[in-house]
């Protein structure tokens, strides 16, 4: 048996009693107890709201910032289904254009891509036609396509300047979605963009866009942000 080590057991055993050990405990008043409960509820409520807002932040700029995107970048997964379809096709077309570049040494015209039935260069049955124009600036190739009532689509490819090929000299390339290597070792930067909403789109048609973001274009990133560093997006 373990003896109780309380003042009462000590008194029973004849030990001297300490006065402060028997201080009466006052029960809280109904008002005080209500206040304590309300305070606890407020704390729980605030924490819950913080948690909920963390999980349901919008899919716009806030979400992009959270993902580590630049202000002009947008995640493919956040786009509406129709636009996702357009971009999925543009992604495939970008792949084909790069293959053409590797096979032929130059870039295909929009008509050449359309002739191979490669959407969105080839007309989509039942949809307004999308007119693509290719513009070439030194080391930069753009395919810009406008369609009535739809956001513009832009495929942009950056070629290396002579003597500036990335990855040469043993520097490994980042494993991201923008770098593509041609059979001759040249490293390309391929990016995909969507224009502003059609009603506010004042982009000049058929011209080279030196800085698409300045014209309200958004670069679409398909993969994880960790694999697509924003610093080299433009």
């Amino acid at each position: 048996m373990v003896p109780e080590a309380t003042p009462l057991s000590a008194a029973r055993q004849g030990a001297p009693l300490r006065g402060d050990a028997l201080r009466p405990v006052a029960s809280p008043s109904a008002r005080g107890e209500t206040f304590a409960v309300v305070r606890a509820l407020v704390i729980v409520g605030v924490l819950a709201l913080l948690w909920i807002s963390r999980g349901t932040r919008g899919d716009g700029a806030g979400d992009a910032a959270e993902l580590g995107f630049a202000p002009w970048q947008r995640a493919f997964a956040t786009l509406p289904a129709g636009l996702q379809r357009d971009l999925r096709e543009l992604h495939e077309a970008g792949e084909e254009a790069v293959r053409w570049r590797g096979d032929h040494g130059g870039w295909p015209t929009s008509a050449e891509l359309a002739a191979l039935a490669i959407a969105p260069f080839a007309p989509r049955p039942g949809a307004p036609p999308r007119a693509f124009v290719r513009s070439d600036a030194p080391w930069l190739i753009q395919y810009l396509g406008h369609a009535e009532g739809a956001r513009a689509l832009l495929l942009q490819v950056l070629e290396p300047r002579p003597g500036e090929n990335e990855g040469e000299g043993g520097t490994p390339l980042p494993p991201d979605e923008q770098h593509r290597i041609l059979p001759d070792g040249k490293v390309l930067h391929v990016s995909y963009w969507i224009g502003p909403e059609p009603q506010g789109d004042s982009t000049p048609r058929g011209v080279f866009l030196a800085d698409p973001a300045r014209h309200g274009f958004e670069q679409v990133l398909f993969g994880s942000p960790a694999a697509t560093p924003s610093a080299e997006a433009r």
Partner: protein
Amino acid sequence: MARWVDRLVFALSAVVLLLGGTGSAQEAPPAAGPTAPLRVGVTLHPYFSWTRAIVAGTDVEVRSLLPGDVDAGSYQPRPEDVAKLKDLDVLVRNGLGHDDFIAAMLTAAGNSSLRQLTPSDATPTLQGAHGEAANSHTFISFTNAIQQTYYLERELAKLRPQHAATFHRNATAYARKLRKIKADAALALAEVAQPRVATVHDGYAYLLQEFGLEAAVVIEPAHGLVPSAAELAAAIGSIRREQLTVIFTEEGFPAPLLEVVRREAGAAVHVLSHVATGDYTDDKFEREMAENAAVLVRALVPPTKSGE
């Protein structure tokens, strides 16, 4: 003096022998280098068809890791399947949750030199209907198949550069074949009046999206899970509310449940292939996907327009 000369001659002879030995070792062909036939294992049927299409005419071996009659969703690893991994050079896997069983098999096989390829990395992914994870059915789509074929071609060419030109030519021809099937179906589906449909499971999201269609209701609560009575009732309610007239199902969904949905929702049921069971053949993907495209047309285009 003579002793010193003897030592010098001995030392020079040793150096010559050592250099000669090194030289002969460099000239010997490597036992299992890049010239040896590449052994590629795949977890899913589409990967088999795509890889076979790429490597046609070369000595690359393509090996299915699962028996043909088992869907990856219900597969339980067997010792004889683990054995297939032991001497593989390359493994082609989904990597988005569709073949997670492979991780334990890899550990058991102990093949540390295996190179893993995940073609899903080459495609933009969609979010699953339930939860936040990516939809792992990236292989049920023409567009995705083309991009994933190109990805596999690039990666295999790195491993066997001597076959790069053949891989490239084959992949291009295969992509054109798939694109033709897709373009014909897109033409037939251009004037679909009701692009919103119901599906039994989430696997057809990529296929539907590339034809401008949308799965407004997905009946299974998660991939491969049979819905409870309450979940089935809720799905039927949603199909009625959305006024959907077409349900796409897979072969394996329980027929009695399907009959309940068909009767109560008043919608027509059509079967789409998951390209997930049956013999591993070179043309399985294109054949079953062509049939899927034909099913979409039959289900959504009135007979007068579809030519029936």
